[in-house]
C-alpha cells in the first residue's frame, strides 16, 4: 500500500528548494530554453523553426532526468538522504515522491515555455491530448531514467554521477532528432536515434503540433510502452533503497 501523505512529503522536501527560488523559474523558463532557441532560430532555415520549438520543449523535460539523478547525488553527498530513508519509506513511495517532485519542478516551466512559443507563433498546437500525452510520457520516462542512473551510480562519487548524468542529458538533447527531423541524421545513426527515448517523446509532441519527424507512430508508441514498463519493473523490483548508500 502506498501512503500518499508520505509521497507528498517526500515530493515537497525535494521540490521546495526549486519552487521557492525565483531564479529557478527564470532559469528554466527563459535562460535555459531561449539561449538555445534564439541562436538556433537565427541560423536554421524557416522550415526547421517548428522543430527547434519542439526541441526547446523537450529540453525543459530533460531537466526531469538531470534533477532526478542530481537530487539523489546531492542528497547522498550531504548525507541528507539517510534522514528520509531511515524512516518507514518503501522504495515505491520514495520513487513516487521523486516523480511528483519532478512534476512540480518541471511541468509548470514546460507549460510556460509552450505558451511562450505558442504566443510567438512558433508552435501550432493541433491536438492538446497528444501534447499532454507527450509531456506526461517525457516527464515519467526521463524522471525514471534519472532515478535509475543515480541509484546505479550512487556507490560512486558525486562528481561521477554529475558527469554521467550531464553526458546522458547531452545525448538525450542533441544526439536524438528533437531539434531536427530524423532524415537529417546519417543512415547509420538513425537506428541509434530510435533507441533514444527523446526521439519518440519529440515525435509525439511534434505530432500534436503537426510536425513530422519521420518516425513511424507505431514504433514510437511500442517503444515508449516497452521502455516505460521495463524501467518501472527495474525500479520497483530490482532497485532497493539500500542501493542509495
Amino acid at each position: 500500500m502506498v501512503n500518499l501523505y508520505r509521497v507528498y512529503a517526500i515530493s515537497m522536501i525535494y521540490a521546495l528548494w526549486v519552487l521557492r527560488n525565483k531564479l529557478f523559474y527564470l532559469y528554466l523558463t527563459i535562460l535555459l530554453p531561449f539561449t538555445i532557441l534564439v541562436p538556433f532560430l537565427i541560423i536554421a532555415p524557416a522550415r526547421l523553426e517548428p522543430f527547434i520549438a519542439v526541441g526547446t520543449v523537450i529540453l525543459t523535460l530533460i531537466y526531469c532526468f538531470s534533477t532526478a539523478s542530481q537530487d539523489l547525488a546531492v542528497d547522498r553527498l550531504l548525507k541528507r538522504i539517510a534522514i528520509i530513508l531511515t524512516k518507514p519509506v518503501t522504495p515505491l513511495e520514495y520513487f513516487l515522491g521523486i516523480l511528483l517532485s519532478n512534476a512540480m519542478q518541471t511541468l509548470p516551466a514546460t507549460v510556460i515555455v509552450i505558451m511562450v512559443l505558442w504566443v510567438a507563433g512558433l508552435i501550432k498546437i493541433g491536438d492538446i491530448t497528444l501534447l499532454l500525452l507527450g509531456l506526461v510520457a517525457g516527464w515519467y520516462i526521463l524522471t525514471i531514467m534519472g532515478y535509475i542512473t543515480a541509484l546505479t551510480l550512487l556507490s560512486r562519487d558525486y562528481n561521477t554521477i554529475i558527469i554521467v548524468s550531464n553526458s546522458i542529458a547531452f545525448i538525450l538533447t542533441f544526439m536524438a532528432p528533437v531539434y531536427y527531423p530524423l532524415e537529417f541524421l546519417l543512415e547509420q545513426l538513425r537506428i541509434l536515434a530510435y533507441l533514444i527515448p527523446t526521439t519518440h517523446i519529440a515525435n509525439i509532441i511534434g505530432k500534436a503540433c503537426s510536425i513530422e519527424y519521420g518516425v513511424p507512430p507505431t514504433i514510437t508508441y511500442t517503444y515508449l510502452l516497452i521502455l516505460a514498463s521495463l524501467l518501472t519493473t527495474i525500479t520497483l523490483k530490482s532497485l532497493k533503497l539500500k542501493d542509495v548508500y
Partner: protein
Amino acid sequence: MVKICCEDLWKIYGSGTVALRGVSFTLVDESLVILVGPNGSGKTTLVRIIDGEISPSRGFVSIDDLSPDVARARGLFGVMPQEARLHEYLSVREYLYYLALIRGLNRREAKSEASRVIDDFMLQEYASTRIEHLSGGLKRRVLLAQAFLGSPEILLLDEPTVGLDPEMRAKLWDIIMKYARGRGSMIILVTHYIDEVRDMASRVLLLYKGQLVFNGDPRELLSKIGYKYRVRARLRGSKVLETLPLRLHHRSGDVVEFYVVDDEELVKLLNYLAGVRDWVLEFNVDRPSLEESYLELIKSLESGGGGQPL
C-alpha cells in the same frame, strides 16, 4: 520490551576495509546503551546495520525478531545519522512536519507531532526560521529532534552532541534522558562524551578494530581500571610514605596519587592520613572516570593484553 539481537556481524566494504569482525550481542529492554570505541572502530557501521541502512556481509540482526527492514517499515526506529545535513531551505516546522508525514502520520497528527517535538527540543523561537539561518548547534538540535518524531521504540543516535559546547550538550542530554525515562524507549547512543551520560547508561558496548571487546554495565567497565577511588594528596616531605599501608601509584613532586581498590582500603588510607595529618597539606578523593577506564582498556588492547573479543 524491545529486543535487539546481533549475531556474528561482519561488514567488509567494497574497498576491502573490514569494519566489523564477528560482533555478537543481545540487548533486552535496556534504557540507554552507550556504544564507544576509537575512531574507525566500526560504531557507525554497526548503527547503520541495526537500522537497516546497510546489510552485513555476514551474520544477522533481528529487532523484536524482525529483520531491520521490516522493523524500519513498522516505524520502530528513530535515527540521528552522524554528520547528516538538513534540507535547509525548509523552516524547522515544515521540515519536522514533512518528516512526521514520512513517519506515517496523517496531516493532523503530523502537525501536532511537529509541535510537540519543537516544544520538547526548545525550538519554539526558531520554528518558522529557515534551517539555513540557524546556528550549528540549533541545526544539530533539529537533526536530533527529527529522530524523536512519532515516539519510536528504538532511538539510534550517532554522536548527537559532537561539536557542541558543554552547555548545549548538557541541554541535549537532559532532553534525551527525559524522553528515555518518559517513553520507555531503548536508546543506543554513540558518543565520545561517555562520562556525561554514564550515570544514565544501563550498558556499554565497546568496539575496537571492528570487534566487540566489552559488553557490560558501566560499573563493570569502571572496574576494568583496577581501582575504585583515587586519592590525591599533597605531602610535606616523604616521611609519610615510609609507613604507607598502600601501594604508591604515582608521585610527582610533593603530590602523590593513591589508587584504592575498595571501600575498606579507602577507610584504611584515610585513617592513616588522619594519623599523619601534620605532614599532609591537602588531599582529595575522587572516582576514576568511565573515559579513563575506557582508555585503560584500549591501552591494554593496543599493547596486546586483555580484552579478548566477546
